[in-house]
């Protein structure tokens, strides 16, 4: 198991190096000079050149990559071209919203999907199963922003249980913060839960067709007992894969939901930075998301090994 973890850790480190190189140089290719953009159309070439020197943009790309990469390691993400504030501070502010939102949505999605998926699988082919399949189909098809607006209409404007948007900050108290994130989390979770429930159901049904389930039934286990004791853990591998993918998506993919609910999250930050040519912010946020994806993948790999003894020996 240790061997497995170390081997995975090595590949994790390598992936990060490769990702940072790709991100940095890909953004180098993007047209548009941040200095010229910041100073506007009428700035003289001398002023632009001076600003470029000040921002460190006149150094060679390789040199700037190493400055940026070593900065990342020490927590120094550089200074935003647009706002002239440290990028680390800006990301820090936003991640306080985005990370809890992603975790909240993921928890909701898993809590909904597991029982629903198992319930559908145990009632295969019956009305319950068909109902779940129809509902999840709808959950996948309906865009989450539309669903978000529906939630606002009913729970914020109609029932007045929640506010329609905005985030009071964690200083207002944990409960207030979570309350503000509840509607966005539900809007994000429902499509994900629909996907996950379907994956759970089909993975369980596949496993229920395996030979070892027949063996378990021959021992005297009922269909339900065989499902809980033998099929469930075997069905987890595909489910874990989907959960890993969903977390990465939720962290970065909430731009629209953040806009609907006026949440100061990472998605809106990166959106603004792109439109303002604030490349250093874009680079840092994208790098952060890559780190998150790679770390999540690493955790999913470890979870595989915890579930499946056959994987523990492999490097």
């Amino acid at each position, binding site marked *: 198991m240790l*061997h497995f973890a*170390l*081997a995975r850790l090595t590949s994790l480190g390598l992936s990060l190096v490769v990702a940072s190189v790709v991100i940095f140089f890909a953004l180098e290719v993007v047209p548009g000079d941040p200095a010229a953009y910041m100073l506007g159309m009428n700035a003289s070439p001398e002023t632009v050149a001076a600003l470029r020197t000040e921002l460190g943009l006149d150094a060679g790309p390789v040199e700037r990559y190493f400055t940026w990469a070593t900065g990342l390691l020490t927590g120094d993400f550089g200074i935003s071209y647009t706002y002239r504030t440290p990028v680390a501070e800006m990301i820090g502010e936003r991640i306080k919203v985005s990370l809890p939102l992603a975790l909240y949505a993921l928890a909701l999605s898993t809590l909904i999907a597991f029982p629903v998926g198992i319930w559908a699988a145990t009632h295969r082919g019956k009305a319950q199963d068909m109902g779940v399949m129809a509902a999840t189909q709808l959950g996948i098809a309906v865009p989450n922003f539309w669903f978000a607006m529906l939630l606002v209409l009913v729970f914020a404007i109609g029932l007045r249980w929640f506010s329609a948007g905005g985030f009071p900050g964690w200083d207002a108290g944990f409960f207030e913060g979570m309350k503000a994130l509840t509607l966005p989390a539900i809007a994000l979770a429902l499509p994900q839960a629909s996907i996950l429930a379907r994956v759970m159901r089909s993975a369980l049904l596949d496993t229920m067709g*395996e*030979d*070892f389930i*027949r*063996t*378990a*039934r*021959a*021992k*005297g*286990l*009922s269909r339900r*007992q065989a499902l809980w*004791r*033998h099929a469930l*853990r*075997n069905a987890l591998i595909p489910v874990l894969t989907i959960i890993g993918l969903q977390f990465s998506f939720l962290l970065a993919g909430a731009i629209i939901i953040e806009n609907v609910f006026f949440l100061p999250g990472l998605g809106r930050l990166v959106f603004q930075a792109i439109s303002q040519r604030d490349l250093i912010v874009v680079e840092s946020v994208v790098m952060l998301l890559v780190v998150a994806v790679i770390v999540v993948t690493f955790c999913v790999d470890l979870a595989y090994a915890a*579930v*499946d*003894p*056959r994987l523990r020996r*492999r*490097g």
Partner: protein
Amino acid sequence: MSLLRIRDLDVSIHGKPVLDRVSLELAPGHVLGIIGESGSGKSMTALSIMDLLPDGSGMSGSIELDGNDLTGLSERQMCDIRGRDIGMIFQEPMTALNPLRTIGDQVAETVRIHGGAGRGEAARIAGDMLERVGLPREKFPPTRYPHELSGGQRQRVVIAMAIALQPRLLIADEPTTALDVTTQAGILRLLRRLVLEDGMGLILITHDLAVVSGNADHLAIMRQGQVVEAGPSDKVMRALRHPYTRALFEASSHQPDRTAGHVGTPLLEARNMVRDYVTPRKGLFGAHGTFRAVRDVSFSISHGESLGLVGESGCGKSTLTRAILGLEPLQGGSVHVDGHPVEAGQKMPKDLRAKMQVVFQDPYGSFNPRHRVGRLVTEPFHLLDNPPKGAERKAAIDTALTDVGLHPDDADRYIHEFSGGQRQRIAIARALIIRPQLIILDEAVSALDVSIRAQILDLLADLSGRYGLSYLFITHDLTVVQAITDRVMVMQAGEIVETGRTEEVFANPQHEYTRTLLAAAPVLEMSA
């Protein structure tokens, strides 16, 4: 009084009848052999007893265990009976165990599910049971996972699960079909011992007459959902009253009519072949190890000769085959076909590849299900510089299909429309269509029923006579080798330990391992 009595059992699945008035009887301490070819209903009979028939099945008739009718019981009552009164063993030990739970845990579950004991006591019983089936604690601790065991060892775990509560009836559905002959002999010995010690009744289901011939007290021969003949083994075997029984027995020991291969000039020559595999690193920074799968193997096949290669799983047969076909690189030695060297990778010239064709065990898996038979059999044409077109191509397909006993019209059908034996004929037609000189048959008849196997062996003998083909027969089935090869090689742990004329090797084996193999192979005792 009989332990199990089945009366007029009718079973249908989605309205299609699969069992027709099946009646069987078994006394405690006895072994009932149920024999039949695929689709004869023997497994369905077993699943009916367990009430584990697939969804959409209907059943009528009676199944009595110790005088109690099982057919009227609820699912909950059947759960109590399964595992406690009736144990069952299945064909495929590699997939019959849950890969995520330890073997001790899975055996203990049988005990615990029936409330026989608490956690600790169940674990102790499980350990004892594993010991009883030949998996001693010191070598096979109950904390092992299934993937750490071989097929035969896994089958022993399945048996331990089935007998943990000493059921009165044990059903073994093709328990040794997926196993090597020496492993098969061990499992059959174990089952016989358990019947003797516990006095339970055993139903031994198999397609292999030789497996039941020395092991069963009673026999039932099934065909198309009916029991065509039943009675004490010696009587059934002696009388062969029913024509189907007779046909089955004849097919089992069928010797195709073939003239011994005239030994021509060498076609394939292998010299000192060595194939190493790189094994995973030992530790994070350790060096890679190597595993030598083929060790210094030399042999030759002459034009028109049929050579057998026998050995148990993992002995290197498949690696050797792949190396001959140029699909794996060699670390030493050489292979020549008709004087031209065979090298792995793209370097192999097309005309050389066209000289060798291969037929695999699973015909269905080696065909693209979306292509028609006509296109499937012409696949090897890409090896020809000038493949036939139009009417010429059609004529080639017709000949290939007719040669293997099919109709030219079959070219327009899809592969799923054919039976297993017909599919194997199509695979042979595909190999034959470019007139190769050597056909490698990798367990090509292992999955077939005995009567179909006899037909395919006849076909191969006939084709070899007509076209002067050479065969390399790779198989674990000694009867096949005996039936159709001129010479045989015995492979063990990557080495050829014995080679010689087939009848001489079978009559007078020289190597210890060959003797073990021959002794382990079940023999069909023909009393007639």
